[in-house]
């Protein structure tokens, strides 16, 4: 049995195949649709579509908002990750738990609730007598609002990714620094953050790519003031009627892909020389001393601001019979809940479907991603970077476009499996394609930091590659895999843009139901669904938390 044998080459090939199927295939299909609509190659038209000023402006907007959104998300999620993992902040578990929630609220719902919060109709500001007069432009509209909400929406991604890294820093590294006379803050700057640099970069990259591909937030905050990003521009183009619509939006998607790849390039640039391996240990704890309570207060304030307020706004909306009716004891009604949860069978079905689809995708990815990373680990850095970029693509392009790619790919019956179109499978596959990178990033980072000798020790114990994978790499990467799985689940649970084109009757998802209510002007019923969604997810997480007590430490990102 030789190294670099057919066996190990086969495993590398298998992984390449998986990546090709999940990530490259849809993109290639899109590029074909972009440059060769109807089978005729036409680069001139392709270039023309991209050179439109609207496209260039949207591209600039996308870059701008995604970049600063990611930066702000880092500033928001980072401190929480540190506080929850490495300090004795009171109530840190609850804080960590709550910080995850923005990810579970669909972006358009978040955007909506923030619009309510600051608009002339704000119940809250109204109570304080601070509501702006009717007709005042909402301060959330436009670039800054989009950046702020990107940060809120993607802070959980940063939080989960960073926490996976922080919880692996052996405590003696921190102790050595403190014994050297460094204050906790300076230890943070000089030791902790540099050591987790790969995680920070991974988190920032995820937040960036998430911003590039986000539709809900710029749709509500940008389109009203004609601040268009690429996904919203694509959506607008969709409403043109002619047969040229497909090439047009696929061409724009290629542009999005290029942006995402640029992000990946920056990522690998930032990661040069930052790959450290160490044996994982229990992380060090900083005592906050007299700052404990003030910091806890600050933490709750922030969480209250980014989560509780919007959630309350949402709740308030869901309790009035119609939009604009002030909430009071007389007007309060549960009729929206009754309507969506009892009367409309589709909502309950959508709950079941979303749990099922998002759960399957999360499970498949969380498990599957470990062998994939283990094989990636053995490839050279250049390959890793390239493949990492490819995996990012389906996450970055707008969901509608990915859905189109899926239709193009899976409509015709395939050999062996037949047509997947209009089955639940196509949604699960599309989710797997789209959220592959969410599951992969934390795990790849974790596997990259597992000290080599742990694997070597298993090898000389006689364990072959597969056994080592199952008994050493997988358990050590399990916390990261669970974190990744959670990210996938929570992102997919409310997902709208992919399933919008892929659902079929009986297979509708929550996002689809929610958005169609929204579109039909039934905002209050949509809010009722959103609130129910949050409740369901919280219940699911609490169940997981219960179950998590028997899991190894650090598997659940908030514990």
């Amino acid at each position, binding site marked *: 049995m030789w190294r670099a044998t057919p066996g190990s080459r086969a495993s590398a090939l298998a992984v390449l195949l998986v990546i090709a199927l999940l990530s490259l295939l849809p993109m290639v299909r899109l590029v074909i*649709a972009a440059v060769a*609509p*109807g089978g005729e190659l036409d680069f001139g038209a392709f270039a023309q579509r991209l050179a439109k000023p609207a496209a260039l402006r949207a591209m600039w907007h996308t870059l701008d908002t995604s970049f600063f959104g990611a930066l702000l998300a880092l500033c928001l999620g980072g401190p929480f990750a540190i506080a929850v993992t490495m300090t004795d902040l009171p109530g840190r578990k609850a804080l960590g738990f709550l910080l995850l929630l923005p990810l579970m609220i669909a972006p358009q719902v978040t955007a909506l609730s923030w619009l*309510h919060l600051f*608009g*002339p*109709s704000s119940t809250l500001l109204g109570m304080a007598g601070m509501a702006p007069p*009717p*007709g005042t*432009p*909402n301060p959330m509209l436009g670039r800054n609002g989009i950046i702020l909400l990107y940060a809120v929406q993607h802070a959980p991604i940063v939080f989960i990714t960073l926490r996976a890294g922080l919880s692996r820093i052996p405590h003696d590294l921190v102790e050595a620094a403190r014994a050297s006379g460094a204050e906790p803050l300076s230890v943070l700057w000089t030791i902790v953050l540099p050591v987790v640099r790969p995680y920070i970069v991974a988190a920032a990259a995820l937040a960036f790519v998430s911003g590039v591909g986000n539709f809900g937030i710029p*749709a*509500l905050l940008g*389109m*009203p*003031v*004609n601040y268009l990003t690429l996904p919203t521009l694509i*959506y*607008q183009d*969709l*409403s*043109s*009627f*002619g*047969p040229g*619509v*497909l090439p047009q*939006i696929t061409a724009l998607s290629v542009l999005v892909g290029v942006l995402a790849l640029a992000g990946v390039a920056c990522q690998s640039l930032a990661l040069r020389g930052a790959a450290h391996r160490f044996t994982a240990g229990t992380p060090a704890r900083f005592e906050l001393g007299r700052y404990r309570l003030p910091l806890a207060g600050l933490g709750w304030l922030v969480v209250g601001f980014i989560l509780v307020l919007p959630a309350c706004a949402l709740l308030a909306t869901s309790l009035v*019979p*119609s*939009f*604009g*009716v002030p909430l009071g004891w007389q*007007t309060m009604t549960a009729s929206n809940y009754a309507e969506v949860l009892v009367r*409309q069978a*589709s909502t309950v079905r959508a709950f079941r479907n979303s749990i099922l689809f998002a759960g399957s995708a999360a499970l498949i990815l969380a498990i599957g991603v470990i062998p994939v990373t283990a094989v990636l680990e053995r490839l050279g850095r250049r390959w890793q970077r390239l493949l990492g970029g490819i995996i990012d693509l389906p996450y970055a392009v707008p969901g*509608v476009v990915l*859905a*189109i790619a899926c*239709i*193009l790919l899976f*409509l*015709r019956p395939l050999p062996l499996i037949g047509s997947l*179109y*209009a089955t639940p499978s196509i949604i699960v596959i599309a989710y797997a394609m789209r959220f592959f990178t969410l599951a992969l990033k934390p795990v790849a980072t974790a596997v990259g930091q597992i000290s080599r000798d742990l694997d070597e020790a298993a090898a000389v114990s006689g364990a072959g590659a597969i056994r080592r994978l199952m008994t050493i790499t997988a358990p050590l990467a399990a916390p990261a895999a669970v974190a990744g799985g959670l990210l996938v689940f929570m992102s997919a649970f409310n997902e709208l843009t992919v399933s*919008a*084109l892929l*659902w*079929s*009757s009986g297979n509708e998802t929550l996002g*689809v*139901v929610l958005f*169609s*209510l*929204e*579109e*039909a*002007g*039934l*905002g209050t019923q949509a809010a009722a669904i959103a609130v129910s969604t949050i409740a369901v997810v919280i219940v699911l997480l609490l169940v997981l938390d219960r179950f998590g007590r028997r899991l190894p430490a650090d598997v659940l990102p908030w514990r």
Partner: protein
Amino acid sequence: ADGKLVLYTSQPNTDAQQTVDAFMAKNPGIKVEWVRDGTPKILAKLRAEIEAGQPQADVLLIADVVTMEGLKKEGRLLSYPEADVSGIDAALYDKDKTYFSTKLITTGIVYNTKAPFVPASWEDLTKPEAKGLVAMPSPLTSGAAMIHTVTLTGNLPEGWDYYNALAKNGAQASGGNGDVLKAVSGGDKLFGMIVDYMPIREKAKGAPVEFVFPREGVSAVTEPVAILSTARDTEAAKAFVDFLLSKDGQEVAAKMGYIPARADVALPAGYPDRSSIKVLGYDAAAALANDAANKEKFGAVMSQ
């Protein structure tokens, strides 16, 4: 008749369900599978299916005629000359009988009850009292809004200057009809252009809004139904079209709160008398041909 039918529609979920249920009650042998989404998305889906070579839908029931006109030009619609169009204005169906309007969804003016005055005409929206308080759906997002724009610019004496005046008055064009409803009922804006059924329905639930049919007249989309030329079961498809145009079918639409296409079916509650609603016409074929130009113009006027 027996058969299976795939319906692509842009009707809201509950409406679509009611329509299909009513149809299947009448035609127990035919099973209808329906897919519902906004017109742009449902068309994107159809386009992708066409690109992949296998359009799945048999029947389309979508918001506007312009889209149908485009599909007809591409030869994707089946002509159904034997369709029973009695009681339906000839303006409401294609002369080649490829698509048939099923109801009228008009666009008029909505205002918040806190508004300083009650608007009665399109021109009222350009008054100084309405400065910065007007919302309208963007034609860049909504097909119905495009038709509304084409109708108004074609019928109002000022033409595009009307929109210039609106823009100068700080009117905001964004999103779809649902967004306008939210903006006006929420008080962000106090006036809006909007499809009729939304504010009428919400008012009934207590929302602080009123709907006005302006005196110049309203634009309308007509939710046409059409059979795709690639339909597998044309018999079932024809049965579906027959049902929608029948008195029973029209009454279902009225019950859902829409203005039926057939003159012999009564309007739903909350609407004024049919005679007081003046529907302005427009040229669908021209609208299709000038779509891109109109969008550009709109963008330029509203500085979008």
